[in-house]
């Protein structure tokens, strides 16, 4: 991988030499247990061994909205609404926008409450409706 300033790097599982992988595993084995660097490298090794490609991104890296939407599991149109409303910060690049990975990570954690709330509202819909009927009945009086 070239140390990039502007690219999010993808290591394709089919490109990796298994001899190199073995050398990586040896290096990881020598790191102290609990080492965060060791854990990250081990994740790369395990994924590639399973045939899964790995994407690495610098927190300073800039993502396209399409990429960001995919990472967030969100519709592109939905994401654009949030960019327009400035809920998720972005920078203009030509006619489009770029989103910093760090901002994306923070945004994702802020959304937790909203996503949990929706799941809970679905689950409690029947009980909530009964309460609503009670409330409306009181207003009829």
């Amino acid at each position, binding site marked *: 991988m070239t140390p990039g300033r502007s690219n999010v790097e993808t290591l394709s599982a089919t490109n990796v030499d298994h001899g190199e992988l073995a050398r990586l595993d040896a290096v990881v084995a020598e790191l102290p247990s609990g080492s965060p660097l060791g854990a990250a490298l081990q994740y790369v090794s395990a994924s590639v061994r399973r045939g899964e490609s790995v994407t690495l991104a610098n927190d300073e890296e800039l993502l396209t909205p399409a990429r960001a939407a995919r990472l967030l599991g969100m519709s*592109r149109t939905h994401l654009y609404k949030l960019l327009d409303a400035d809920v998720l910060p972005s920078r203009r690049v030509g006619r489009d926008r770029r989103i910093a990975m760090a901002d994306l990570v923070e945004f994702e954690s802020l959304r937790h409450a909203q996503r949990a709330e929706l799941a809970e509202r679905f689950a409690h819909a029947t009980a909530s409706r009964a309460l609503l*009927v*009670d409330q409306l009945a009181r207003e009829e009086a």
Partner: protein
Amino acid sequence: MPPPRPTLRCIREDLQSDWGDTAHQRAVTDLDSCPPLSGLDHPAIQHLSALFGVEDGASLNRESISGLTDPMWWKLKTSRWRGAVYVDDDGQTWLCAAGLRRAGEKSDFYSSFTREIGRLGAAHFLPTAEDKARLRREVAEARLATWEESLYTSAVTALASAQISGRASFDVPGLAASDPALASATVEVAILTDDDPEDSIGEIVVAVTPRDWARQELLARAEIVLLAAISPDEQSWVAGHSAKQRIFSVTDSAEAVEALVAQSASADRTPGETRAGAVSHYTHKSRLAEHYVIGSAARALCGVYFVPRQDPEGMAICPQCETVFRSLEAT
């Protein structure tokens, strides 16, 4: 004016037999499953509507029970039943007492009823606070159901329209015709086709802009009805709001989204009815029991948020969760 109805005392004490549907007799104690009392399957109740439910208050065949004036009582006669009917100050008609007609007996229903009035007082038979509360609840339920039906129709219509033109908007009305609109809603459909049909993506985005902030619970109900109308699978929806709009989206293959649009129009669904998850997810076990018990949302390894409430046994495991779990095991 709501239709004529029996009092709860009359149902419990007087209507002991002749039920067309015994489930109705049992249902009266269960508020949630009971049909409106005016529609219960008993000949006395059904005849009540036929005789007293007509609009012309001129009461063609109504006969009062002689001797009773404060209040006045009307007679109800079917082949087997006799009843005493009361019209309250609001104009609501009540069946307050009933009994089987006994041919050839010395005292008929109306004589014994008159005696009971003398002995216990009219108040014993008149509708109670519980009767009136029950009526109000039924009226509220009917109003809400009508409102939900029209909201469901608006959502389905907007979805079909958005599939063609890209977006469609409509107002989320208040409960009463004279109430201001609760919110405005927009439905957007985007199909992004790729050369490779497997990569074609479909998106549905619903944005709700609240206008009347006083009716939070009603607006919350409106959102559930809207989302359920468009995609009834709870876990298909992703929430991400801005300061002014509440925004929800579904992302799937173009084919799946087109199927959603088609199904919304043809299905005969109950407004607000949703489906819980069809696959079981992995989530952190430390809070799983808590989530089950208090009904709070858990985050699955695959990123989906859900309230665990089904038995995962027998369900297929979410493939995305499986993948993430295996990778965690390997580290």
